[in-house]
C-alpha cells in the first residue's frame, strides 16, 4: 500500500482555484437571475414606526421590496436548541430592532445596480429606545451563565486561590482587555436561491451544510427533503459562516415569491453588523508562585459581551484549566448583556483571546521571578489534567517549547528589556504556549468504486480553505490502494452523508475517521473479490469513552521576534516560529499553511484588529477593510511552522488532532511578550498600537 496520508500533496482543488473555475455561492450561473440588496437598521434598539418604500418601488427594474409589512410567514426564532445553527432564522418578521445593522428590507431588481440604489431609497422611521452598548458601563448587566457555548461549566474552583495569593512569595494580578473582532473572511456571505416546483436549491457560503439545510427548511416551513443546500467552495469562514444569515433566507423567500432565482450578497460593510463577531472581553489573571517558580495558584476570570438578541458564552477561561499545574485554581466566565450585534465563534473561540491574557501573565511572572519564561513553563508542566484528574491523550508541549527554542535561537535572547538595539529598532523575543481542545463529532461518509483504480467519496463536509478535498482523497487513495488522481471527492451538498461540517477544528478528524472506516470496509470487500465497479460502503465515527477517559488537546509553542521603533513605538514583526503537536498530520503542506495562517491571525490580534463601538449609537464604526485592520503582505515577514511527529491513538483511528485553530492560540501573546522584551512596554489592552507602547519609551 502506497504511503499517501500525510504527504505534502498539492491541493486537488488547486487548479480550479488558480484558474477561477471554483464556483463560490455568488458565482452560481442560472437563467433569469435577479439581484437582491439588503437595507439595514440605523438604530440599535427599538422598533420601526414607518416604512416608505414607494420611491424604491418606482425605480426601473425593481421587482419587489420586502419588509416586515409584507414578508411571508416564517417559523419563529427560538433561544435554545441542540444545534444552535439549525434554529429558525426568520427575517423581516417583526418591527422590532435588536441591533444596529439588522436587516429591515430586501429589494430585488433586474440588476445589482438597481437593487442597491433602491435599497438606499427606502425611508424608515424608528422609535429608538435607550440600549446598553458599553461593556465597561457602571450599570452594566452582568450574568453568571452555568455553561459555556460548548456546554462545559462556565466556572471551576479547586482549593483556595485567595489564600494562595496571600501566602505566595511572588504573585501576578493583572487585567487584560481584548476588543471586538470580526472574521472578515475574503468572501462576503452570499446565497443564490432557486425554486424548481416545490424544490428549493440554495447555494450558500456556509461551513455547516446540514445545519444550514435544517435552518432554511425550518425557517421557510418546508420539509427538509424539499431543500437542497450546496456549498462546494467557501471563501473562508473562521466561524463566521457557522450560522445562516439573512442572505440565504431572504434569497429563498424572494425567489419563491418571484418564481425566479435570486442572489443576495452582504456588502463588506454589512458583514460587520449582520453577521457574528468576537465579543470584547475583560480578563483578570492571578498567579501565585514560590520563589523557584512553582505555581501554587492560578485564577482566570473573564467578562465578555453577549447580545440580548442571542446568548453566546465564549469559553475564554477554558484553556487555563488544563495548561499548567497548580493546587489552587479558579476559573469563571461571566457575560455582559448588550444591545450590540450577536457575538459568536471566531477562530479558536476561547483560547484565541484567553491565551492573550494567560500567556502574557505567565511572562509577567517570569520577569518577577527573574526566570526564563520557557523554564517557568516547563516547571509547571502537569502530569495529568489538573482539574479533571485524568491523563492527557497525548501532550508534547515540552517538546514544542524545547525544539522551538533551539531552532529559533532563544539562547541569544537577553532577558533585560531594551538590551538589543539595532539602529532605530529595539529588538526583542517572546514565547507563548498554545493549547486547543481536540474535538471529535459524529460523522458519516460514503465511498464508491467507479473502476478498479477509481473511486468517489461523498460527504456533506465543506472545504473552507482547510484542505478537506485533498486529505480525503489521500485517505481514500491510501486505504483503497488506488492512485490519488483516481479519487473524486464530492463535498458540500446536503444530499451527501451527514457530517459535522467545518468548525472547531473537528472537521478533518471526524470526517477523515468516518471516511477511513468506509474505505476499510470497502477494501475488505474488494479483497474478497467483490465489485469493484459500483461497490460502495458507508463509514461512521462518533466520539466514545476516549474523550471521557483522556483530556484531549493539541499543543504548540510560539516564538516571535519583533522590532519596536525607539522613537515612534511602531511594532514590526521580524520573524516567527511555531512548533506544534497536532497529532498525525494528514497533509504536511496544507497543515503547515493552516498553522502559519493561524499564527498570523494571532499576530493580527496582538497588533491590529479592533472593531470599535460607538457606545452612543450601538454601532461598530470602522466597518470596512480600510479601517478594520488585518495583516497585509508587508506586515508578514518570515513565518514558519513545524509539526512534531505524533500519533494520538485516543483521538481517532487516524491519530490526528485539530489543526485549523491551533496556530492562533497563544501566538498573539508571544508577540506581546516580545514587545516587552524589546522595550519594556507591558501593554495589557489589545491591540498593542503605538500609542500604548510610547509611554514606556520615555
Amino acid at each position, binding site marked *: 500500500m502506497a504511503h499517501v496520508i500525510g504527504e505534502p500533496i498539492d491541493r486537488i482543488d488547486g*487548479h480550479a482555484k488558480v484558474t477561477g473555475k471554483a464556483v463560490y455561492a*455568488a458565482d452560481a450561473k442560472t437563467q433569469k437571475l435577479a439581484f437582491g440588496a439588503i437595507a439595514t437598521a440605523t438604530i440599535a434598539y427599538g422598533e420601526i*414606526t414607518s416604512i416608505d418604500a414607494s*420611491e424604491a418601488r418606482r425605480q426601473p427594474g425593481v421587482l419587489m421590496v420586502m419588509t416586515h409589512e409584507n414578508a411571508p410567514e416564517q417559523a419563529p426564532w427560538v433561544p435554545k436548541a441542540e444545534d444552535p445553527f439549525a434554529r429558525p432564522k426568520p427575517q423581516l418578521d417583526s418591527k422590532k430592532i435588536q441591533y444596529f445593522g439588522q436587516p429591515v428590507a430586501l429589494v430585488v431588481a433586474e440588476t445589482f*445596480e438597481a437593487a442597491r440604489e433602491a435599497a438606499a431609497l427606502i425611508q424608515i422611521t424608528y422609535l429608538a429606545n435607550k440600549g446598553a452598548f458599553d461593556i465597561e458601563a457602571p450599570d452594566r448587566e452582568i450574568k453568571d451563565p452555568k455553561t459555556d457555548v460548548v456546554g462545559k461549566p462556565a466556572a471551576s474552583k479547586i482549593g483556595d486561590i485567595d489564600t494562595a495569593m496571600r501566602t505566595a512569595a511572588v504573585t501576578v494580578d493583572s487585567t487584560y482587555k481584548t476588543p471586538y473582532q470580526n472574521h472578515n473572511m*475574503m468572501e462576503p456571505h452570499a446565497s443564490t436561491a432557486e425554486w424548481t416546483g416545490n424544490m428549493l436549491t440554495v447555494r450558500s457560503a456556509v461551513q455547516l451544510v446540514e445545519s444550514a439545510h435544517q435552518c432554511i427548511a425550518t425557517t421557510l416551513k418546508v420539509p427538509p427533503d424539499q431543500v437542497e443546500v450546496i456549498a462546494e467552495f467557501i471563501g473562508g469562514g473562521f466561524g463566521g459562516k457557522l450560522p445562516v444569515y439573512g442572505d440565504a433566507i431572504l434569497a429563498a423567500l424572494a425567489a419563491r415569491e418571484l418564481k425566479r432565482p435570486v442572489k443576495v450578497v452582504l456588502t463588506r460593510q454589512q458583514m460587520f453588523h449582520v453577521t457574528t463577531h468576537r465579543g470584547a472581553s475583560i480578563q483578570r489573571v492571578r498567579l501565585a508562585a514560590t520563589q523557584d517558580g512553582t505555581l501554587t495558584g492560578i485564577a482566570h476570570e473573564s467578562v465578555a459581551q453577549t447580545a440580548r438578541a442571542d446568548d453566546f458564552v465564549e469559553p475564554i477561561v477554558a484553556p487555563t484549566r488544563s495548561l499548567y499545574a497548580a493546587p489552587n485554581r479558579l476559573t469563571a466566565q461571566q457575560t455582559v448583556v448588550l444591545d450590540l450585534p450577536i457575538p459568536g465563534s471566531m477562530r479558536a473561540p476561547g483560547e484565541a483571546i484567553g491565551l492573550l491574557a494567560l500567556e502574557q501573565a505567565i511572562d509577567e511572572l517570569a520577569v518577577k521571578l527573574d526566570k526564563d519564561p520557557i523554564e517557568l513553563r516547563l516547571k509547571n508542566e502537569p502530569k495529568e489534567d489538573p482539574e479533571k484528574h485524568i491523563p492527557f491523550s497525548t501532550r508534547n508541549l515540552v517538546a514544542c517549547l524545547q525544539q522551538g527554542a533551539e531552532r529559533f535561537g532563544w539562547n541569544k535572547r537577553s532577558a533585560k528589556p531594551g538590551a538589543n538595539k539595532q539602529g532605530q529598532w529595539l529588538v526583542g523575543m517572546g514565547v507563548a504556549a498554545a493549547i486547543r481542545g481536540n474535538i471529535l463529532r459524529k460523522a458519516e461518509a460514503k465511498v464508491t468504486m467507479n473502476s478498479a483504480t477509481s473511486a468517489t467519496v461523498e460527504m456533506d463536509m465543506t472545504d473552507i*480553505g482547510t484542505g478537506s478535498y485533498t486529505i480525503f482523497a489521500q485517505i481514500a487513495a491510501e486505504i483503497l490502494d488506488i492512485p490519488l488522481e483516481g479519487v473524486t471527492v464530492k463535498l458540500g451538498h446536503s444530499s451527501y452523508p451527514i457530517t459535522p461540517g467545518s468548525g472547531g477544528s473537528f472537521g478533518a478528524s471526524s470526517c477523515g475517521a468516518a471516511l477511513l472506516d468506509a474505505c476499510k470496509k470497502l477494501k475488505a470487500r474488494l479483497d474478497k473479490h467483490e465489485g469493484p465497479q459500483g461497490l460502495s460502503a458507508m463509514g461512521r465515527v462518533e466520539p466514545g469513552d476516549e474523550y471521557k477517559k483522556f483530556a484531549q488537546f493539541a499543543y504548540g509553542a510560539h516564538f516571535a521576534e519583533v522590532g519596536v521603533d525607539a522613537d515612534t513605538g511602531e511594532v514590526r514583526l521580524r520573524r516567527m516560529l511555531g512548533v506544534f503537536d497536532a497529532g498525525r498530520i494528514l497533509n504536511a503542506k496544507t497543515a503547515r499553511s493552516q498553522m502559519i495562517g493561524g499564527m498570523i*491571525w494571532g499576530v493580527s490580534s496582538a497588533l491590529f484588529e479592533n472593531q470599535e463601538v460607538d457606545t452612543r449609537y450601538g454601532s461598530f464604526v470602522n466597518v470596512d477593510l480600510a479601517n478594520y485592520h488585518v495583516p497585509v503582505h508587508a506586515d508578514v515577514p518570515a513565518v514558519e511552522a513545524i509539526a512534531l511527529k505524533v500519533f494520538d491513538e485516543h483521538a481517532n483511528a487516524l491519530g490526528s488532532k485539530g489543526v485549523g485553530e491551533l496556530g492562533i492560540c497563544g501566538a498573539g501573546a508571544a508577540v506581546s511578550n516580545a514587545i516587552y522584551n524589546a522595550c519594556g512596554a507591558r501593554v495589557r489592552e489589545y491591540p498593542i498600537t503605538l500609542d500604548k507602547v510610547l509611554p514606556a519609551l520615555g
Partner: protein
Amino acid sequence: MPDKTLLTRRLLGTTALASAVAAKHLHAQPQVAATRPPAPGNIDVDLDVNGHTHKLSLDPRTTLLDAMRDHLGLTGTKKGCDHGQCGACTVLVNGVRLNSCLSLAASREGDKIVTIEGLAEGDKLHPMQAAFVKADAFQCGFCTPGQICSAVGMVSELQRGVPSSVALDFASKPTGSVEEVRERMSGNICRCAAYPNIVAAIIAASEGTPT
C-alpha cells in the same frame, strides 16, 4: 423606563452628515424623494476581455467587475469589498493591474482586459498559476484570482522599473527583493494569511524556477 426618542433617518446618510455636506457648499444629497433625477437608461459598451470583444448593453452604473461577473459570466474575478480595499477583483488592463470594482465598465472601452480566466493557455497554466499551486499559496482561494493577476502585473512593473516606496533609490531599477514583493502586493489581502507562500510562489515564478 428607557428614554424614548423618535428618530427619523434615511438609510444612507444621517441628517448630521447631510447638513455637514451642505455646509461645505458641496453637492448636498437632496432630502426629498421627488427631486431625484430619473434612473438612467442602458448604454452600449464594447469590452475586450481575454481577447474577445463583447457587445453589452449596460446600466451606466455598472462597474467593470460587475460587467464581467454578471453580464459575461466571468466569475473568476471576485468581489471582496467593492471599495478597492481588498484587491480580490484585481485584473490586468492593458497589462497594468487594476481594482475592477473601482472602474466603470463604460470607461474601459478600447482597453485590453485580462482576467484569471485569460492567463492559462488551454490546459497549460500560466507559470504564476502553477507556482501558486506548488507553493500552496492559497487556502480558501477567494483572493487567489486577484493575487495572481496582481502578481503578474507586479512582475511586469518590476521589469519596467516602476519604483515602490521601499526602494532606497528611485532612480535605479527595483530589485525584486522579498521586501519589494511584499510592499507591492500589499493591496491584495489574504485573510487565510497565505502570505509567506504567496511571496514564495511569486519569487519562484518570476525567477522561472521549474514548477
